[in-house]
């Protein structure tokens, strides 16, 4: 499932914000599949990929993906060779694509 990028106008945002304040609704956009999958990498790689064993935030998506495919295919040596086998190639691509959009060092998206 792909993340749909729809940028509403400023006036629409203001209208929506006012409406939601009155209702007490929740501003939660459905996260991309990559974000959901990538959140499960943060235990070892830091929140949003910014820390841990290897800072993967902001890395090139294709490079991350190729690295994960290599880990998945080669004989198991390290812990990531196991973890990479836990996901489909499509999931590994979504994860790579997600971390490529994140900012490194202090650049959490909160």
């Amino acid at each position, binding site marked *: 499932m792909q*993340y*749909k*990028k*729809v*940028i*509403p106008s400023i006036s*629409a*945002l*203001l209208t*929506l*914000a006012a*409406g*939601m*304040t*009155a*209702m*007490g*609704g*929740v*501003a*939660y*956009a*459905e*996260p991309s*599949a990559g974000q*959901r*999958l990538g*959140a*499960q990498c*943060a*235990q*070892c*790689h*830091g*929140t949003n990929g910014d*820390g*841990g*064993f290897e800072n993967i935030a902001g890395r090139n998506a294709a490079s991350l993906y190729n690295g994960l495919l290599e880990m998945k295919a080669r004989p*198991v*040596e390290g*812990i990531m060779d*196991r*973890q*990479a*086998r*836990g*996901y489909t190639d499509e*999931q590994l691509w979504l994860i790579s694509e997600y971390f490529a959009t994140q900012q490194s060092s202090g650049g*959490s998206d*909160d």
Partner: protein
Amino acid sequence: MSSMNRRQFIKFLGAASAASALPASMGIGAATTAPRVVVIGGGFAGATLAKYLRLWGGNIDVTLVDPAAAHIACILSNLVVTNALSMSRITLSYDSLRNKHGVRVLQDRATAIDPVGRQVRLAGGSSLPYDRLVLAPGIDFMPIPGWDPKKIPHAWQAGTQTTLLKNQLANMPSRGTFVMTIPKAPYRCPPGPYERACVVADYLKRRKPGSRVIVLDANPQIIVEPHTFGVAFNEIHKGVIEYYPNAAVTQVDSNTRTVSTTLGSFSASVLNVLPNMQAGKIVRDAGLAVDASNRWAPVDVLSYASTIHNDIHVIGDSQASGQPKSGHMANAQAKICADAILRSFAGLPLNAAPTTNSACYSPITATTASYLTAAFQYDPSTRSMKSVADAFGEADKISGDHYEAMFTWANSLFGDSFG
């Protein structure tokens, strides 16, 4: 506006992804109208849940309740027992949850839940109303006749128990006998007891020469990392560790430090009893621990909602999904749960394909360690999280590199959960 209309409207907002673009100041300003989530238990599950609800959801009124002023991690705590690390190294503050993420942290104890009136009563006298309740109290112990944990430590919840075991070990005579029991699975931290046997054996070799470690396992064999712990018990710590499977504890004499088991009685210089485990009391008292064993709480693994009350979620060690009971896994489940709660508030469907994973490093000596790892994918046919066979495995060798990696892993997990 009726609740149905409101849900439809919010669903429209979510579909348009408009909400994510709102500056925080333009979001749901009035705290009185923000949905309220109360989290009971500030360990890895509860802390991660509270953090990610705020990180992803913005204006959610999140209250975390824990009796302690800070969380003391079980992770690395065996190294506090052997005095390799200080307690402060595994003490995790709630300051970031409070100050960085805007979580209200209450130092109090939840005593009762009113699932109809949707509120939690606290020992301090107040009651907390909720829209969603998340229970993350960790484990509780099954009683053993004669067992007094103030004399015979479990040290399976870190803190004063860790100190008690550490002091008993420090005061143990040379040529002494350390006896420990391993509970029937499932229990918190599957490799943990075997790890403890190893690091205690290593400590005794250096500090209390001539001592022995007797391991009494209620299970029919070493339940995880059979290669690693086989090598550790039979080669690295040969002559120190004696391992007995199928030894279920029946009684403890807390004064003479004697444990009775199905294999006979064992007397110890230091006795460390790990009883069989069950869900935290608040989960059991709420009538949620209704799995086949009546010890753990069944949940829908798409949301971690209890099968008994769908607005009460259970994450971490107390739930019955069959995933390993560990801090890393508690963190993983908390993120699925946080996403599910936010989707529910926003009227969005649940994520139909969640994944979780587990990794943990176990010290084997004062300078070496091993690891165990697993990845889980949702299986719609059984509505459960299924371990991916090729992703499951232990380290092929015990090494100094893994010992170094253990601290990177722990620091990262501490930071992602509490930072």
